[in-house]
């Protein structure tokens, strides 16, 4: 039977909304809160994904999907014709810039990109671009990082930059030229220790040899999701031989799988938010429908069908959604703009700056989920309204009988307890939502407190300061830690100890039985198995590092689980260790044959010393390993190492100062190292300030969300309490009329509020804290330095808040109904 009765239903919806303003407020608040919480969570998730994606782009330095090295003219022509290739850019490395000690281990190049490559692929992966791409032959553009390495900290357009460079990397063809700066930008590729200065086409044209050697075509495919398939087709279509380089861009190799656990966690939080929002909406609506049972029964008597009654309830929630969702979505938007960049930055999800996602999916998604939550919350109340029996509705008073049967003897607290459990379902919903809010809050604050900054820093840093020589691995080590430097360190304020770690090159005697497996794994890692090595090749290239350390310090670095090493024999230079975390590679090593090597000043033709033989005495921690060599890192005592080399290089200096001197020492160290980019400094005190920021953000965001949840619980309580007292208006009047003093009535209501607060406290103290400890245990599996710290103060404050609200709300509501005289209240109906 299809009827056109929309108009009357809409009128009923409208009027019913008008008649229930207080309830509407709660519902709109619940809907808005749900939207806000979901929107914020989605926004965090999307922003992290976008930030990670942008980080990958920025670190790889290009938005192109793939590159082909040394493309032939016909391949280039063909590339532009392929239907699945969107655009093609080209560029090549024109020359190497001569490495100076100030540049540390970094390498700089002169590079040319054509218009497509720069504008479409390179520029989007950089930020803060000032000026233009070089046009004139002597113009140059550079990243801020490259300029810093050249000693230019405040660039100006048009400033002159003299450079020495070797075209095509040919070292015997050193050329000099003064360029003019045409622009600069912030690049992130220096993180991989290489960076380029960009030159014009006019300049690049003159170096045909470089073009032949280094030309590369960058390719953007039409569809991002099919990069690997397109790449395979491309290799076939262009007929790329095995020895021609072709690769997919780094940023497209790494998927978003790494973020899956984080996204799962956010998803779980979202479900939690939906659940709380649902509880509140359901409770408010259910109470409202229960109170209006007579109304719905009457409508049914008059011929309103169950379907129409459902529409009446659902229609109200839909209209309230039209108010609540936009409010929540706007609040979520504001939250995103203000809090998310700080959060992503502070949590160190990415190193290249946070990207705030404004994807419409966030807000449509939050709105859709909030709408679903609201409809779900309205479902049972609507069903209840539809199933109201007209006959029973006529007798309905809105008051359910208590379940307890023991006499209360007029004692306010006994009556209060009875009143709380008059409607067990309602009491359960209120307690559950208060409990969920408190427990979420306790969990978040416990994790934040347990993740104490000091514990974390201590787990990461053994020393107050560590200075590293970054140039050690370049061709021309800067040796920044000379005698005068060490003298200044010795004069540091509050210095307690200062240990140095020595490191030099050495050649290690190779035999396939002892080192074959290890060498294979290294070759695989260094050359990806692309180059074939004979045993003789390996023997010749079996070069690595010899590290010198004091026995005492070695003991400190080793965890208790490590195997016992004869430290005194180590100090006497009678044994040597291999630094590794994978001892399985070296099952048959017994004697080590070490030949010291010293690099000449130009980095060429290392001179070999005399081979020494030293017994193998066990394994040293991996932290002492120097990566990048074929041979394993061998650890010996400092005195033994010093006996092999004339003036062994200092790899790092570990410094501890007395408590309270950290700041002074940091300032002094900054002065001593100056602008020397060869020195890298790691300090506890600087790490602490970064970490404190991250913890504050976690506390503010997590605690804020949890407080909102607690707020939802309180809203639920206020709603239940106010509806309950209003419905019982007549009953309270009757109690007064038969001689219960107002004071006693108020005390009874006070006890009701107190009852909720005490039960919430008991639940949280037992079940809640149990859950929190469980969560902490799971958390500790991920973050092993966490120590359980209960956030007594914040949790205490929240309980104080809940107690205050629970005690004040009944009083306020009672006052509002007790304004009328007793006679008026007794006569009043409905």
């Amino acid at each position, binding site marked *: 039977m299809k009827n056109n009765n929309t108009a009357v239903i809409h*009128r009923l919806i409208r009027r019913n909304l008008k008649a229930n303003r207080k309830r509407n407020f709660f519902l709109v608040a619940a809907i808005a809160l749900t939207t806000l919480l979901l929107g914020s969570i989605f926004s965090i998730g999307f922003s992290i994904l976008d930030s990670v994606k942008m980080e990958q782009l920025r670190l790889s330095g290009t938005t192109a999907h793939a590159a082909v090295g040394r493309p032939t003219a016909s391949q280039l022509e063909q590339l532009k014709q392929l239907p699945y290739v969107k655009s093609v850019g080209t560029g090549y490395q024109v020359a190497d810039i001569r490495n100076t000690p100030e540049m540390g281990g970094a390498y700089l190049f002169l590079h040319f990109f054509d218009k497509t490559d720069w504008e479409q692929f390179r520029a989007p992966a950089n930020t803060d671009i000032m000026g233009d791409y070089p046009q004139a032959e002597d113009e140059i553009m550079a990243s801020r990082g490259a300029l810093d390495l050249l000693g230019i900290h405040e660039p100006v357009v048009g400033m002159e930059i003299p450079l020495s460079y070797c075209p095509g990397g040919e070292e015997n063809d050193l050329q000099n030229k003064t360029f003019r700066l045409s622009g600069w930008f912030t690049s992130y590729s220096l993180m991989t220790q290489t960076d380029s200065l960009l030159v014009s086409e006019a300049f690049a044209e003159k170096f045909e040899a470089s073009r032949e050697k280094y030309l590369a075509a960058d390719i953007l495919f039409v569809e991002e999701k099919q990069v690997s398939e397109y790449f395979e087709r491309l290799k076939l279509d262009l007929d790329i031989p095995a020895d021609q380089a072709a690769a997919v861009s780094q940023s497209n190799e790494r998927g978003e799988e790494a973020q899956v656990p984080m996204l799962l966690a956010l998803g779980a939080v979202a479900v939690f938010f939906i659940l709380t929002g649902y509880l509140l909406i359901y409770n408010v609506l259910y109470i409202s429908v229960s109170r209006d049972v007579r109304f719905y029964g009457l409508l049914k008597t008059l011929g*309103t069908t*169950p379907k129409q009654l459902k529409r009446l309830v659902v229609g109200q929630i839909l209209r309230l959604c039209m108010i609540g969702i936009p409010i929540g979505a706007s609040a979520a938007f504001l939250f995103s703009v203000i809090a998310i960049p700080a959060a992503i930055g502070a949590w160190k999800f990415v190193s290249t700056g946070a990207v705030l996602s404004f994807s419409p999916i966030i807000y449509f998604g939050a709105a859709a989920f909030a709408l679903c939550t609201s409809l779900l919350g309205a479902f049972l109340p609507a069903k209840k309204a539809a199933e109201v029996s007209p006959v029973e509705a006529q007798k309905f008073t809105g008051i359910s009988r208590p379940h307890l049967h023991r006499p209360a003897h007029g004692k306010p607290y006994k009556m209060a307890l009875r009143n709380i459990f008059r409607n067990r379902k309602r009491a359960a919903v209120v307690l559950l939502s208060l409990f969920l809010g408190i427990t979420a809050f306790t969990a978040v604050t416990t994790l934040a407190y347990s993740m104490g900054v000091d514990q974390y820093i201590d787990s990461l840093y053994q020393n107050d300061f560590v200075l590293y020589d970054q140039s050690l691995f370049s061709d021309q080590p800067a040796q920044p830690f000379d005698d005068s430097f060490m003298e200044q360190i010795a004069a540091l304020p509050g210095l307690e100890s200062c240990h140095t770690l020595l490191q030099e090159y050495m050649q290690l005697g190779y035999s396939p039985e002892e080192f074959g497996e290890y060498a294979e794994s290294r070759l695989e890692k260094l050359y990806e198995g692309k180059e074939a090595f004979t045993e003789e090749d390996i023997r010749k290239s079996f070069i690595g590092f010899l590290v010198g350390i004091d026995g005492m310090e070695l003991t400190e670095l080793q965890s208790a689980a490590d195997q016992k090493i004869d430290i005194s024999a180590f100090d006497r230079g009678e044994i040597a260790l291999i630094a590794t975390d994978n001892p399985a590679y070296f099952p048959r090593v017994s004697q080590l044959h070490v030949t010291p090597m010293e690099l000449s000043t130009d980095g060429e033709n290392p001179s070999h010393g005399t081979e020494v033989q030293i017994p193998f005495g066990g394994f040293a921690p991996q932290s002492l390993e120097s990566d990048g060599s074929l041979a394993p890192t061998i650890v010996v005592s400092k005195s033994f190492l010093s006996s092999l080399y004339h003036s062994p290089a200092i790899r790092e200096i570990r410094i501890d100062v007395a408590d309270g001197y950290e700041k002074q020492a940091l300032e002094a160290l900054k002065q001593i190292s100056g602008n020397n980019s060869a020195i890298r400094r790691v300090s506890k005190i600087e790490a602490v300030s970064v970490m404190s920021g991250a913890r504050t953000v976690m506390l503010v965001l997590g605690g804020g969300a949890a407080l909102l949840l607690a707020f939802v619980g309180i809203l639920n309580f206020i709603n239940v309490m106010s509806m309950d007292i209003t419905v019982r208006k007549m009953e309270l009047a009757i109690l007064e009329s038969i001689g219960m003093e107002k004071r006693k009535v108020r005390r009874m209501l006070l006890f009701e509020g107190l009852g909720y607060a005490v039960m919430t406290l008991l639940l949280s103290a037992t079940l809640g804290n149990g859950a929190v400890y469980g969560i902490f245990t799971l958390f500790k599996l991920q973050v092993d330095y966490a120590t359980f710290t209960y956030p007594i103060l914040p949790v205490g404050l929240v309980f104080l808040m809940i107690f205050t609200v629970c005690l004040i709300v009944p009083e306020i509501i009672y006052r509002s109904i007790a304004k009328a005289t007793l006679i008026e209240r007794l006569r009043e109906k*409905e």
Partner: protein
Amino acid sequence: MVRALDGVNLTVETGEFVAVVGQSGSGKSTLLHMLGGLDQPTSGYVVVEGHELNGMSDEQLTIFRRRNIGFVFQNYNLVPILNVYENIVLPIELDGNTIDTDFVSEIVNTLGLDGKRGNFPNELSGGQQQRVAIARALATKPSILLADEPTGNLDSKTSQDVLGVLKLTSTQFHQTIIMITHNEQIAQLADRIIHIEDGKMIREGCGRR
């Protein structure tokens, strides 16, 4: 199990005004609820204008009610959020029908509610509210008007007034009316009086016409 009604056999002709009299708990309200499709008998049947009510679903019963039954309750049961006119036409609108404005105006005028169309229930006296309830019951031109203690909440003067309106309805609109009351005197207004006790019809008589 309590037998609220037992062996009641009642036929009401179109246009009749029947009063059902009994003490409280005698089962008269249950009888009315069954006649109005608010409740279903465990055995036996109710037929209104050829429709058998037994076995109808909740939805079907509801639609049956709004098309065939007009209710007048002791406590008026007006929808508080709708004004007088909206209350009167509510059952028509729920059915999705166009309002017979001439007929509704006639009822409103007859019941003396002309000046109160825009008022809300809480702005009316008890007698006025009950008139609105009667007008609402009549608006759908129901087969039966069921009145459950229509004067139970009213003082005697207003009661007389409302009963007069009911009687007028019966004659002027040729409306079938079944009224429940515990008051013999009020029952005398009806064409036929049925006495009910412990769920059984014990006596039937004629009223003072």
